[in-house]
């Protein structure tokens, strides 16, 4: 016997319309909304400026010109100079590199480790899940800065030690959210179906569960990035992170602090504003991604 069932005309037409894929820009706009897109645009400008600092920065960020110290905005120095006469704009551009790269590394490490732990916990369940959740809860109870300080105490102050310490501190933030999402997916029939087909646990985790929690992983990573920027800047402000003379926004707030009392707030304010701007952009984008990731479920 042969099949005589043809798909109804109506569905074919509808499918044809749906197959037209929207462009990347349109997709991004739909996910982020107006404010989120604006934040993404601002962040993109900051990132581009930071990346191209070696080419675009008007001066060497570390070159002191004591004769021009604490100068106000001029045509030569649009944002003025600091106490050592270094160009603030150039230092901002170079400093943004460090301020973005450090937290970026923190989030990358903690997301990879946290997601892996979460997926293992969700898939294995039982005792494995209990132990992993228990460890995560302990990590959760300790503030991120404390991990950074411990790390500094052991390996000495530097950007990398602080990044390592914070990466550990951020693992539970990622893992907890992802574990919850992965457990939800795990209980859906399509995962049971894959299991019944005879797919391996690893296979199911990578081909079934991970693709479905991936929007949540990304949203959580971006949201945490804002906190990491603040934490890292705070540690640098305390003098335990990035070491002078390297330009870093947290460090600039600190070194600009003394100049504020002498009536030259330019360095501290410009660095502080840039930190706030970066954190705001990242937080807004993270929020939008989180709410779209939720509404997709």
């Amino acid at each position, binding site marked *: 016997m042969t099949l005589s069932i043809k798909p*109804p*005309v*109506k569905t074919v037409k509808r499918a044809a319309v749906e197959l037209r894929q929207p462009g990347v820009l349109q997709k991004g706009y739909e996910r982020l909304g107006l404010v989120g897109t604006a934040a993404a645009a601002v962040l993109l400008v900051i990132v581009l400026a930071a990346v191209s600092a070696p080419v675009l920065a008007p001066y060497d960020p570390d070159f002191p010109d004591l004769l021009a110290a604490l100068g106000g905005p001029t045509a030569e120095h649009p944002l003025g100079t600091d106490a050592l006469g270094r160009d603030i704009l150039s230092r901002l551009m170079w400093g943004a590199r460090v301020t973005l790269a450090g937290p970026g590394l923190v989030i990358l490490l903690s997301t990879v480790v946290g997601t892996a732990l979460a997926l293992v916990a969700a898939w294995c369940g039982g005792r494995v899940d209990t132990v992993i959740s228990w460890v995560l809860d302990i990590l959760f109870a300790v503030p991120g800065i404390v991990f950074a300080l411990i790390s500094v105490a052991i390996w000495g102050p530097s950007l990398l030690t602080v990044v390592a310490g914070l990466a550990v501190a951020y693992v539970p933030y990622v893992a907890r959210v992802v574990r919850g999402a992965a457990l939800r997916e795990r209980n859906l029939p399509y995962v049971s179906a894959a299991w019944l087909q005879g797919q391996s646990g690893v296979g199911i985790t990578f081909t079934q569960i991970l693709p479905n929690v991936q929007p949540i992983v990304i949203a959580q990573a971006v949201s945490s990035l804002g906190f990491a920027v603040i934490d890292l800047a705070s540690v640098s402000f305390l003098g335990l992170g990035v070491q002078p003379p390297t330009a870093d926004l947290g460090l600039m707030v600190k070194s600009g602090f003394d100049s504020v009392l002498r009536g030259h707030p330019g360095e501290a304010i410009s660095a502080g504003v840039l930190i706030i701007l970066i954190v705001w952009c990242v937080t807004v984008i993270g929020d939008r991604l989180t709410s779209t990731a939720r509404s997709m479920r």
Partner: protein
Amino acid sequence: MSEALLTLTDVRAVLHSRHQSQSLLNGVSFSIAKGEALGLVGESGSGKSLTTRAVTRMLDPAFEVSGSISFDGAEVLSMGPAELRNYRSRDIGMIFQDPRAHVNPVHTVGDFLTEELVRNRGLAREEVEQRAITLLDEVGVRYPERRLTQYPHELSGGMLQRVMIASVLLAEPRLILADEPTTALDVTAQSDVMAILDEQRRARGLSLLFITHDLELAAACCERLAVMYAGEIVEQGAHVYESPRHPYTIELLGARPSIDQRLERLPVLQYNRDIHEQLKAEA
């Protein structure tokens, strides 16, 4: 025929989104007389649920609704907030597919039944409770006094649906809207709930708008049927089940397997949007 209670005239609903406008109700007209039951039958996406939401003015604001919905002479589509509240709470009563989603799980059945009447109509709690007990008994709930102190999760689906019916009757509406009230229930519970609904609305002379995908069930419980397809009513009247005239209705009835005989193959619906448009153009 006696006086009409609810009359829809050429009701249209267009959904506006950023990219496009979709017309989902394309001129729905029907009326329900006082004391009459009308079965609104259609498959998913036919617009039957949208129609009920239009009648209760609960459509999303993204819909542009036109036409006229008149309830006992009053135009529903132009009601102000106070009128609308009054209309929703006193004139119509609603029963849904999933009763559990419409009760607050932390309130007892007694609170659920009495709260609205005590708070908004200023009736004494004892009096309402007495009436609730009588009504629960009438809809076939055993030990009604004890039920008042129970929580929704302690009741089965069929039982909860009876409580919903009692709560609707308690408010003494003139029209009951029942949206797939038995779809989530077992067949025996379905038979019960429909029997109770039928018996109660006849005894009280209420009108009923029964929304369902089940033509046979609607035919057994309603005086007239209206069959929807693609946001339109293709056929309505008392004849629909026994002697359907519209090709869609005929095919829909034929596609349902029968409990009495096994067919070699079930007839598959050939009716589609193209045929639908063509038929409309010819008419």
